[in-house]
């Protein structure tokens, strides 16, 4: 009927495969600013990122890419972990044999196990370093207090993740590390004994514990951590991007007010009379009315120099670079070093000394003085102080620079905390021999 819209069948074929491609990628490789911003918000994977990102956020020496590396390690762990699940059986009679099979018969088995183990070690370290970066740059201050709390939660979950993974090979280290670890848990007041029993599913480490740790490791914790990572990233965006020092010409400083109050302040400047009406008008008419919903510094409206660049390609390339470095690092380490595997579990003979993985050795060193204070009391206090830090340290200054002089006290305290824990770890790793007696490594 309508000749204008009818298409001859063969003409439709000539559009292939271009029309398929265009239906997937709504945007061609951009050559204009409009295209660059469209690329960010028409792509599911890129829309997590802002269209434009502040130059300061891209500086390697500010973040050292630690948050990104943590994410990429988590992704490597998820991929290698799922692959390892194809050959693993959480059974006390089979688990250890499966470890040997990974070495002997499974294609790339030993390599995948190496990648998984070393990435796990690296993730604990990098997440901790990321926490140090955030503290020493004062990035946990308003409005980012709650994201710091989520971060502390992610750090603890990372440790627990690693702890549950430790049991799965069912070798001597696995068995005794978990025996010692869950015994520490049982020192917790009131709920300690029940916590240990629920964790192990029995009175001692055995088949039930192996199954429980497996389920936690491959189902419960991955879901929890993924969820928290999502919230963590989302809040980074909503809190105005990665922290940076305030700029003199910034119209509205980042820290102080609620979004609506900001809009009200803006309109009050324009029309001191009838602020309610003015607010309404500003929300309807002005460009920054809609930005009033977003917390944090206003994106520039032309009256200040624009220090931001387009995420595509600037941010994306930086991320790609960090990803490549992370993967390359893990691959190289996994090629040269094999993940340790000790003797199969022997319930009769604990190794002497029975040492936990390095990041728990500080804890184990403290535990050798007092099980309650070293294993429960002091760690709980440390976590509480970490959680409260953004609510106790409320001075707005010193955000966005490393070791700001304004934050000398807070940074010194945190540095003490870090150094003490590292020293305890070193003592536990190198200076403790049989019966946990002091030995010299030389």
């Amino acid at each position: 009927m309508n000749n204008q819209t009818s298409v001859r069948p063969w003409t439709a074929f000539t559009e292939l495969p271009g029309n398929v491609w265009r239906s997937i990628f709504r945007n061609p490789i951009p050559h204009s600013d409009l295209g660059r911003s469209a690329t960010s918000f028409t792509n599911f994977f890129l829309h997590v990122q802002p269209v434009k990102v502040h130059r300061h956020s891209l500086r390697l020496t500010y973040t050292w890419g630690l948050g990104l590396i943590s994410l990429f390690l988590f992704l490597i762990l998820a991929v290698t972990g799922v692959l390892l699940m194809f050959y693993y059986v959480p059974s006390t009679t089979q688990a250890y044999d499966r470890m040997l099979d990974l070495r002997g018969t499974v294609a790339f088995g030993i390599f995948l196990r190496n990648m998984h183990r070393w990435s796990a070690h690296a993730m604990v370290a990098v997440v901790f370093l990321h926490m140090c970066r955030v503290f020493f740059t004062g990035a946990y201050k308003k409005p980012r207090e709650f994201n710091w709390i989520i971060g502390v939660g992610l750090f603890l979950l990372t440790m627990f993740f690693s702890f549950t993974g430790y049991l799965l090979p069912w070798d001597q280290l696995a068995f005794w590390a978990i025996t010692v670890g869950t015994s520490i848990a049982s020192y917790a007041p009131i709920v300690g004994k029940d916590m240990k029993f629920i964790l192990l599913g029995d009175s001692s480490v055995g088949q039930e514990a192996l199954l429980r740790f497996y389920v936690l490791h491959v189902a419960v914790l991955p879901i929890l951590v993924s969820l928290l990572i999502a919230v963590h990233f989302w809040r980074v965006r909503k809190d105005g991007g990665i922290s940076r020092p305030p700029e003199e010409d910034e119209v509205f400083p980042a820290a102080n007010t609620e979004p609506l109050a900001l809009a009200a302040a803006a309109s009050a400047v324009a029309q001191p009379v009838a602020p309610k009406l003015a607010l309404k008008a500003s929300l309807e008419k002005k460009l920054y009315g809609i930005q009033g919903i977003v917390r944090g510094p206003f994106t520039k409206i032309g009256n200040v120099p624009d220090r931001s660049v387009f995420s595509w390609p600037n941010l994306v390339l930086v991320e790609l670079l960090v990803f490549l470095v992370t993967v390359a690092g893990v691959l190289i380490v996994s090629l040269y070093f094999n993940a340790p595997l000790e003797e199969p579990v022997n319930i009769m003979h604990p190794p002497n000394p029975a040492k936990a993985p390095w990041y728990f050795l500080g804890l184990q060193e403290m535990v050798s003085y007092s099980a309650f204070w070293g294993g429960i009391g002091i760690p709980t206090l440390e976590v509480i102080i970490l959680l409260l830090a953004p609510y106790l340290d409320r001075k707005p200054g010193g955000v966005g620079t490393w070791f700001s002089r304004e934050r000398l006290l807070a940074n010194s305290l945190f540095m003490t905390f870090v150094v003490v824990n590292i020293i305890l770890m070193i003592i536990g790793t190198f200076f403790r021999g049989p019966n946990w007696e002091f030995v010299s490594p030389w």
Partner: protein
Amino acid sequence: MANQPTTPNTEESGEAITRRKLLSWLTGMGVFGSVLVSAFSNFIFIKPRATYGQPNRFSVGKPDEYPAGSRMTLDARRICIVRDGDRMEAISTTCTHLGCIVATSETGFACPCHGSHYDQDGNVTGGPAPKRLPWFQVRLAPNGELEVDKDVEIEPGTYFNV
């Protein structure tokens, strides 16, 4: 109904509870309560009622198998059976510090993990152990065999007389 005078709604401004407020409060509490109850029931669910590992009450053979003056450790059961003349006792060999197996030593027991020491009766003589090694109930089962119950801790110094 229709002829009732519609009173002006004065409650909204005051502290008084309106029907809407009450209903939303009840709904909120209902939802919140259900979440709490289901979270709590998860803990009941994952706390096993029956365990599949070793039973805590088991037979350790006839009293004659233990000569007078012997100290036999059953590592798999994590106990040490001591016989002193006609008196017998079962001492735990699980270190009270962090659950390693203690080995018998000349002076009693010693833990290889963090260096706790105990004397012959299980009293702490050194190291980080916070408590003595517990003693477990020993009884004679009807079939003439000794039965140890690790769920029942008894006062140290309470012997089973053969």
